């Protein structure tokens, strides 16, 4: 049973979505703090460019493609939910989760290769930033996938369909973070 408070909407934005904008806002400053720290180190330390040469641009590009595509599925799920088609939304959400899993698998291969070459998180500040930034993003991918599973489970029975949009917005945010991580960690060499 939801309190009356939850059903009110003085701003005109539904409560769940309004809260989600604040969630995304507070995530922007978490990633922003980390990335700002990375960028100033990257500019201040020309040797970071030599380290970055060991990252695999193609793996990064593949993962960008995977996340962009999963974002498309997330927005298609939202479109289906808006039309009240919970089953279709459920299916698209699972495609999105598939994207998340693919992303993590690619990351796993990539990291294994780099660690075998001796580029561990303790090697130097570049690799510390590399694993921490991508790892924090990876945690968000995992969290998003889990939440999406829960939402999909409900959506299948046409319950709480508004959550499809909310988890989608979160997923697009995770996508945007990667859109910036990709050039920062892979392209700028």
């Amino acid at each position, binding site marked *: 049973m939801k309190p009356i408070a939850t059903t009110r909407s003085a*701003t*005109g*934005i*539904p409560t769940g*979505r*309004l809260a989600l*904008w*604040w969630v*995304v*806002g*507070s995530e*922007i*400053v978490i990633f*922003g*703090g980390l*990335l*700002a*720290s990375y*960028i*100033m*180190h990257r*500019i*201040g*330390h*020309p*040797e970071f460019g*030599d380290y970055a040469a060991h990252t695999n*641009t193609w793996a990064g*590009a593949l993962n*960008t*493609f995977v996340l*962009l*595509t999963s*974002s*498309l599925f*997330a*927005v*298609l799920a*939202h*479109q289906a*939910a*808006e039309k009240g088609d919970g089953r279709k939304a459920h299916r698209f959400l699972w495609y999105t989760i598939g994207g998340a899993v693919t992303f993590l698998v690619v990351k796993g291969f990539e990291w294994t290769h780099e660690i075998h070459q001796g580029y561990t998180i303790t090697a*130097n500040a570049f690799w510390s930033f590399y694993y921490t930034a991508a790892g924090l993003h990876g945690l968000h991918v995992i969290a998003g996938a889990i939440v999406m599973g829960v939402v999909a489970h409900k959506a299948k029975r046409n319950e709480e*369909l*508004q959550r499809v*949009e909310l988890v*989608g*917005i979160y997923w*697009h*945010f995770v*996508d*945007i973070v990667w*859109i*910036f991580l*990709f*050039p920062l960690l892979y*392209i*700028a*060499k």
Partner: protein
Amino acid sequence: MSASPEAADGHHTNYVKIWAILLVLLVISVLGPLLGHRTLTLVTAFGIAGVKAYIVAAHFMHLKTELKIASYILVTMVALMVLLFMGVSPDVMKHDGRNWNNDAAKAETHRAESAHSAAGAEH
């Protein structure tokens, strides 16, 4: 949950088309460094990242049709990060200035660069 302004937009937006645009931008950003021009690479890498982020935010996140307050929240947060960068970078990004030196950072850069060129000479 379909707020009225968004429903009007939502049905007409061709999400697959937007996705295709994003993929084209991705290809450009990957191919950018092959041109071998530093400034150009920065543009194709970060300029395009900005464009991609805008497209995802505006069309997939529906910020275009959401009430303005949501965009204000997010833009404020981004602006604060720019502020953080401006305040912190003079100390971290540079290794010397008026009456100060960051000897440890200079030494590390020097060490890493010479190690790198030594490794390059071996090849």
